[in-house]
């Protein structure tokens, strides 16, 4: 078992935020006597990540995901707690540490907008001291896999969002970091572009054994890339483990979709015999039942023997619905 590459212990960040009521009077009063309140962004979180893992950090807006990434990348000093990443304390911002990590933010550009990306890449290769041969090799690889030959000579400001995101990824990866923090990398991208970026990240992770922590609001990113997820809510880590287990724990139900070969008149009464089974609105002429996992075999057996069933499918509820439920209720 290798040593964990990321070790986080009791990490806490409390922001001190100036506060004032709206209006001119209040703004004058706040000038004379500013009022601050302490907003805990991250509270006592601990976890470890093994080299080469891809971990999804999920949670609603304002849950503390980005704050956690900012502390791990050295942008923020924690209020308390400790983190060791690749043997370094991130917020000491040692150059050797910064050369080993990369933080790509979907809403923040690392490129100079006035000049073509190729020029920015060259400067970054100098800043990160990438040997010229290695630079050419990794750049060729990234440009080929991301299919971005045509973008390299246009100023960044003339690129589309998707094109720019490709460039941001190249900028973040060309010095071959060991650890990659991705903050909403697919933000605002169309579905096709999201899928391409996912495929790319997966391949890159496998070929270069880079450790990835990714935050995203698109569950498709997480299901496609992250076998393991950490769920943050109100600054606390409330789940850390496999995505599938999370779904099972959260949604102890399965969906049973039914199609009948002949009309069924007393279906509602039939369903009423199981108080735990709930009938959901019909979709495309299909009846949908929400059945507790344990009851699924018995319910399906009874349906099949008593009713003219043409087709029956048992499914997990969509992950979005599951996550939506926790975001709204905040409990597991």
């Amino acid at each position, binding site marked *: 078992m290798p040593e964990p590459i990321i070790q986080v212990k009791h990490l806490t960040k409390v922001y001190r935020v100036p506060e004032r009521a709206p209006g001119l009077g209040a703004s004058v009063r706040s000038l004379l006597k500013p009022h601050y309140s302490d907003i805990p962004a991250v509270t006592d979180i601990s976890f470890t990540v093994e080299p080469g893992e891809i971990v999804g950090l999920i949670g609603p807006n304002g849950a503390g995901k980005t704050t956690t990434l900012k502390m791990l990348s050295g942008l923020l*000093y924690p209020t308390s707690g400790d983190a060791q990443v690749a043997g370094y304390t991130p917020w000491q911002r040692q150059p050797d540490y910064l050369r080993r990590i990369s933080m790509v933010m979907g809403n923040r550009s690392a490129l100079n907008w006035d000049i073509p990306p190729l020029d920015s890449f*060259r400067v970054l290769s*100098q800043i990160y001291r990438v040997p010229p041969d290695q630079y050419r090799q990794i750049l060729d690889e990234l440009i080929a896999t991301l299919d971005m030959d045509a973008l390299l000579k246009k100023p960044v400001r003339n690129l589309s969002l998707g094109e720019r995101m490709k460039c941001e990824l190249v900028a973040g990866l060309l010095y071959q970091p060991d650890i990659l923090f991705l903050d909403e990398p697919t933000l605002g991208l169309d579905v096709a572009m999201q899928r391409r970026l996912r495929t790319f990240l997966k391949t890159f992770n496998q070929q270069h054994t880079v450790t990835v922590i990714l935050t995203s609001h698109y569950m498709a990113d997480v299901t496609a890339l992250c076998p393991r997820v950490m769920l943050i809510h109100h600054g606390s880590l409330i789940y850390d483990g496999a995505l599938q287990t999370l779904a099972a724990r959260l949604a102890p139900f399965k969906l049973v979709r039914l199609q009948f070969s002949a009309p069924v008149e007393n279906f509602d009464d039939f369903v009423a015999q199981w108080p735990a089974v709930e009938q959901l609105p019909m979709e495309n002429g299909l009846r949908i039942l929400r059945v507790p996992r344990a009851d699924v075999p018995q319910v399906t057996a009874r349906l099949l023997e008593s009713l003219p069933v043409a087709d029956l499918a048992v499914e997990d509820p969509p992950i979005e619905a599951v996550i939506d439920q926790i975001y709204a209720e905040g409990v597991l």
Partner: protein
Amino acid sequence: MNHRGGWALIQNTWQSWIQHRGFFFLLAFGWMLPLLVYLFIWSAAASDGAIAGLTQESLAGYYLILILTNQLTYATTNWTVGDNIRYGQISRWLLQPMSPIYHALSQEIAGKVVFMLFSVPITALLALIIRPQFNLSWGQALQFLPAIVLAWGLRFFWGYWLALLAFWVTRADSLLALQDSLIFLLGGHLAPFALLPPGMQTLARLLPFRYMSAFPVEVLTGQLGVQETLTGLAIQLGWTVLAIVLYRWVWTRGIRHYEAVGG
């Protein structure tokens, strides 16, 4: 220290700035105007004879050189530092294995090149028209070199530490405007040092602002004796060291305070 990265950055910034040369030429022209106005005012005032030892032609020479040194020492970068902090832009520089001051320095150096592309020919043209008088000597030129380098260093680091206060207060750039006003008053813009009233001369001699702009010009145009030049250089060096110490002090504290806003 990461000089290789810094040098690459300078080249890049220059490429990017040269794309906006029209904007920078206009800026340079804007900075030139008040000094030209004072050039004409003082030339007119000295048309009947020298004031405080300065003739019409030597006043013209003083202001023409001041136009150039003012642009060489003016730290435009500092105006953007506050916004970079306020809007969280500085985050991307903090992620790089290189001190963020390289970004400011690269903009400084790139900017000077762009400004000089405009200002040197214009000043030369003005010199042909106005026909100023210069008392230049090799000795003065030799003293001018450290004076101009220190003037730039002092003006840059002084503005930089003020701008870094943006870590705590949101509009620290008003302090930069104050710095500019004091340079205008005490830094030989409104009037050459020799023409200031005695009280203001004392202030100018003690405070850092004269050493950010007029002092090298006074050295080059031979307005100062050896003793005055050496004392001036010593005061200038002292202020520069203090500015660098303040920058380091504010920086290390500010960075701990930084909230990495946005995103």
